[in-house]
């Protein structure tokens, strides 16, 4: 099992969600996050243009079976891409154990029904 975490543009989030759904990933969590990077958001206040010191992104996190790993990554890479600076990152972690609270199922069985 692997945990996939991705930071993506707000403007691409809907596409990412649809692409993951198409890749049979129906379970995922996300947060709206603020961060800093090279990308800046310009704003204007009473004639003065300025950069806010944070940019808004969506942080996605989900755990997949190893067999679903590649297609999940590909789905995100394709859907979150614009080619401009600030498209985001994907981080992958090895997951030791997963337990479904309702049934007590462990490992791959606990993630979701096999298609």
């Amino acid at each position, binding site marked *: 099992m692997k945990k996939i975490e991705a930071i993506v543009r707000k403007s691409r989030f809907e596409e990412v969600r649809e692409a993951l759904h198409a890749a049979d990933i129906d379970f995922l969590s996300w947060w709206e996050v603020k961060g800093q990077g090279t990308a800046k958001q310009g*704003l*204007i*206040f*009473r*004639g*003065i*243009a*300025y950069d*806010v*010191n944070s940019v808004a992104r969506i942080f996605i996190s989900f755990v997949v079976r190893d067999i679903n790993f590649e297609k999940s990554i590909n789905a995100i890479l394709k859907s979150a891409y614009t080619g401009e600076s600030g498209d985001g990152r994907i981080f992958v972690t090895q997951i030791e154990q997963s337990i479904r609270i309702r049934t007590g199922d462990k490992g791959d069985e606990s993630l979701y029904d096999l298609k």
Partner: protein
Amino acid sequence: MKNKYFIYISFLIGCFIVLPLSSFAQTVATALPAAAAIAPVPFISAGNTAWMIVATALVMLMTIPGLALFYGGLVRNKNILNVLMQCFILLAVISLEWVVFGYSNAFGSSSGFLAPYIGGFDWAFLKGIRVTDVSPYYISQATERIPHIVFVMFQCMFAVITPALIIGAFAERMKFRGFLIFSLLWAILVYNPIAHWVWSADGWLNKLGALDFAGGTVVHINAGIAALVTAIMLGKRKLPKGQHITPPHNIPFVVIGAALLWFGWFGFNAGSGLAADGLAANAFLVTHIAAAAAALSWVLLDWFSNRKPTVVGISTGAVAGLVAITPAAGFVDVSGAIIIGLLVSVMCFFMVSVVKRKLGYDDSLDAFGVHGIGGIWGAIATGLFATPMIQSAYSGAFYGNPKQLGIQLIAILVTLIYSGVLTALIFKIVEKTLGIRATDEEEILGLDLTQHDEIAYNEAD
């Protein structure tokens, strides 16, 4: 930056060329009632009284929620309650001060050498003012007047909003108790005397002939310079390195606030004739048109200099236009109003986007940049554009009376000096005794939490 200056200058020149060319046909206020040969006994007019009660309520609306939301939306979300509270408590405290002795100091009379400078205490607690008394003050309607009590209330709302305007300069970094004592002392020692000078029958600026229909000098220049002084003396807010701007936390509030200010300003200006007549109608008209012109010209400046028309920009422009037309509302016609409105945004925009940054003081919400500069321009413009078509006794430099401009400049200068010096003095006294600047921790945690034990936006559901 060069490009920016070019835009200002071409805009200014454009206004001066285009406007006089289209010489407006003026139809307003052609005939004011001729003064009667024998002065009849003044009485309380039901129509005038009805309008003035409404106008008074409209002026109250300007402080809360108008100004409160305008300023409250511009601050960060950790300080909005503090701003709302400051506006609200001023309505309570200054109203009490007003009936206790403020009104008497401002509009009453005293004897001897003090008479031109401050009223006495004859009307303290409104002693001797009966419900049947007619107002000793009137503008165009000498006979059909309003009750004295209504005049007291109308002026009360002016006394409230003036110290409230200063909040914009020291927002986000002032201790609440320091603010409260500072504002009260300021109302007593600065507002009341200046109101006396300009508006009372004995006032020396009034006798000199200074024109201030609804408070350009008394309210806006006065509060504007006090704002500049407090902003400088209080120092800058603690912001991350390199950051000069704090994004407004709720621009819809700014819009609601500006719209309520605009609405309430009809009472402020059209009520300042103290009657429901043609003069009030003209003030109503020019107030609206100046605000419209200023809102538009600010947006155009935004558009040209930053490529986008902004919502804070149109709101600020409208308020600047209202400020500028305030002293002129009873003296200028609609063409004067358009020029006053179009130009005030150019000046205020230049002030807040270029000059303020160059000088480096932290006038958080541009109380000086908008009210100070807009008020000074309005007072000067009154000396230029006042036309005998509106009130036959008063004309400005463009209508054959250049002396008026000189008188206006004296009134502006005197107000700037007196208010500036007294504000600094009061500030020092409060700073030494109660403390006035919030601690770094209070400022970073937010004044809502540290001054009031409340937060505006609870995240828990």
